[in-house]
């Protein structure tokens, strides 16, 4: 039981928005579609909702096993929240939420009483009760987003699709909305897909994250899986800051400068040029050289403000720049100064076989 898309390809003129995409979302799951702009994530969401139709061929959209590929948006029973909410500006909050119930065919349309009850319920669930009589132009961004969600939920959709649900609000409201969406999802447990370009958002809110790039799903997995085991340099880079060290791979190690570091997995390359990926917080800095495991570098800048200290460093052997993050504690112990020479140790080094440059 799930929402599933198969072999979805969608072109706009010469631009391929989606290229043979397959995705399966389990019932009750909250999945994030994460990717840079132009990666096809919104198009995929619109295809699922029936607002775009995939280019012919073997494309299929399945809602709980039922093929809805040819069914128009109005009959798919998908709830969709638009990026800029698309609230009906001439209707108040109550009527916006009631819209989906009022447009039902006579046979299935609930009575006025039932509509009031249902909308009242949703107003309460979304903490919108005092705003029922307001018009969209009188609401803040966060409130609009909640109305948009309540409106989508009113029709009891089989799947909830959210396009950049937190895109158009400021950072603080964004955090609140995130928590609220997570809570809402735990309460009503509806199969949900949401689109975002913010990796932090995806990792924090979703059960699983699908990373899109150029119309393809690059990797899909739980937040931990994709963060700890990125399948490609693109995913690695997209999920956080990263340092690149050019070096050579040899038998389970990578040689950077004149130092050997252990590598978790290699594709069996021996003695080839490679680029090693290391996150800034996986870099340790010491004053003493630690045998074979460190290489020398010079500190260019230190910034100790905030919970983590950010350092900018330069390799002594080839002048390559990289960044390091220290905890407050480490920073206070070490007391690094700009211009100082230190020794650098790398943890969790990852290399990718394909050629890649950021």
């Amino acid at each position, binding site marked *: 039981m799930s929402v599933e898309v198969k072999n979805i390809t969608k072109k706009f003129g010469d631009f391929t928005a989606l290229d043979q995409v397959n995705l399966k979302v389990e019932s009750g799951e909250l999945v994030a579609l994460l990717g840079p702009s132009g990666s096809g994530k919104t198009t995929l969401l619109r295809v699922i909702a029936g607002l775009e139709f995939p280019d012919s061929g073997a494309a299929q959209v399945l809602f709980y096993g039922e093929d809805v590929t040819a069914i128009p948006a109005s009959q798919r029973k998908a709830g969709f929240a*638009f990026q800029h909410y698309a609230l009906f500006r*001439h209707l108040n909050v109550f009527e916006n939420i009631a819209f989906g119930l009022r447009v039902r065919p006579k046979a299935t349309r609930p009575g006025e009483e039932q509509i009031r009850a249902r909308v009242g319920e949703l107003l309460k669930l979304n903490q919108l009760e005092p705003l029922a009589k307001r018009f969209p*132009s009188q609401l803040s961004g966060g409130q609009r987003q909640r109305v948009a969600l309540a409106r989508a939920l009113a029709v009891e959709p089989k799947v909830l699709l959210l396009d950049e649900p937190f895109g158009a609000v400021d950072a603080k409201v964004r955090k609140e909305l995130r928590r609220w969406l997570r809570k809402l999802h735990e309460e009503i447990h509806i199969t949900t897909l949401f689109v975002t370009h913010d990796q932090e958002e995806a990792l924090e809110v979703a059960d699983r994250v699908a990373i899109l790039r150029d119309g393809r799903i690059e990797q899909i997995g739980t937040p931990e899986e994709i963060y700890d085991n990125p399948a490609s340099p693109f995913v690695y880079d997209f999920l956080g800051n990263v340092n690149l060290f050019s070096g050579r791979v040899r038998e389970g190690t990578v040689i950077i400068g004149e130092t050997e570091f252990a590598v978790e997995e290699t594709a069996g390359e021996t003695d080839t040029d490679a680029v090693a990926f290391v996150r800034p917080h996986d870099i340790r800095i010491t004053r003493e050289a630690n045998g074979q495991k460190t290489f020398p570098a010079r500190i260019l800048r230190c910034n100790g403000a905030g919970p983590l200290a950010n350092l900018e460093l330069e390799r002594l052997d080839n002048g390559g720049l990289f960044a390091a993050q220290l905890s407050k504690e480490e920073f206070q112990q070490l007391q690094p100064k700009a211009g100082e020479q230190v020794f650098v140790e790398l943890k969790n080094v990852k290399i990718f076989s394909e050629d890649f440059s950021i």
Partner: protein
Amino acid sequence: MTDDAKINAPHRIGEPPLVRRLLIAIALAFIALFLIVPLLSVFTEALRQGLGFYFQTLRDPMTVSAIELTLIAAGISVPLNCLFGVAAAWAIAKFDFPGKNILLTLIDLPFSISPVISGMIYVLIFGAQGWFGPWLVDHNLRIIFAVPGIVLATIFVTFPFVARELIPLMQAQGRTEEEAARVLGASGWQMFWRVTLPNIKWGLLYGVILCNARAMGEFGAVSVVSGHIQGRTNTIPLHVQILYENNNIPGAFAVASLLTFLALVTLLLKTWVEYKHTGLRGTAFTPVPLKKRQTEIPA
């Protein structure tokens, strides 16, 4: 006013007072000379021979027939152009299709050619010597020098008003509200009546008012196709001309005062609709700009 406010009060910028007053005076004098004086003259000339003559002219069967014909022509052309206008604006604003720009240009065509030529077109097509002339004569159908010709010419001339008003409005509003309605289960009709129409109603009304004013006041195009048959194919503007040419100056002005009155009513309605557009709530007509929406934070 507190001291702080005084200090913070912005200094006046721009031209010195003398220049400003001079400019205002020139503008007012111009308006008085070219708008107010002619307007007053219409009514003074119309009433020169007294109220009795004024109403006698308006009750004259020829005048009544001209008023009727004008109402018929406007009554047919305005609803039709309303329909065409909404359809054209919908197509242009909500869909991408080849030839969209050509359609946009074509909609403006009636504005850019002389009304006389608009009339000529129909004479050339439907007139006795025109393309369909012989066929129409065989079937005993009259278009030129008859009511259908007048209606056609009026439709042509007033075609752009509604569409031009709606296209930018619908383009600015985008498609997402309609898409939202669709996803919520609305049929095409429900979407139109419950979402699209409420969003464009003030723009539509504005276009209809302008369209109606032009339909009733059109002279050139109608003049060519009408044939000026008193009591049969005479509209108000044509009737004014006939009275004037027959040296019935007060009569001409009396009938002209009707059109002037229509113009004033139109102006009032237009102002009222404009006020409603941007009025207090203004939800239908003044969407909060996207930029503002994004940065709108309750303090």
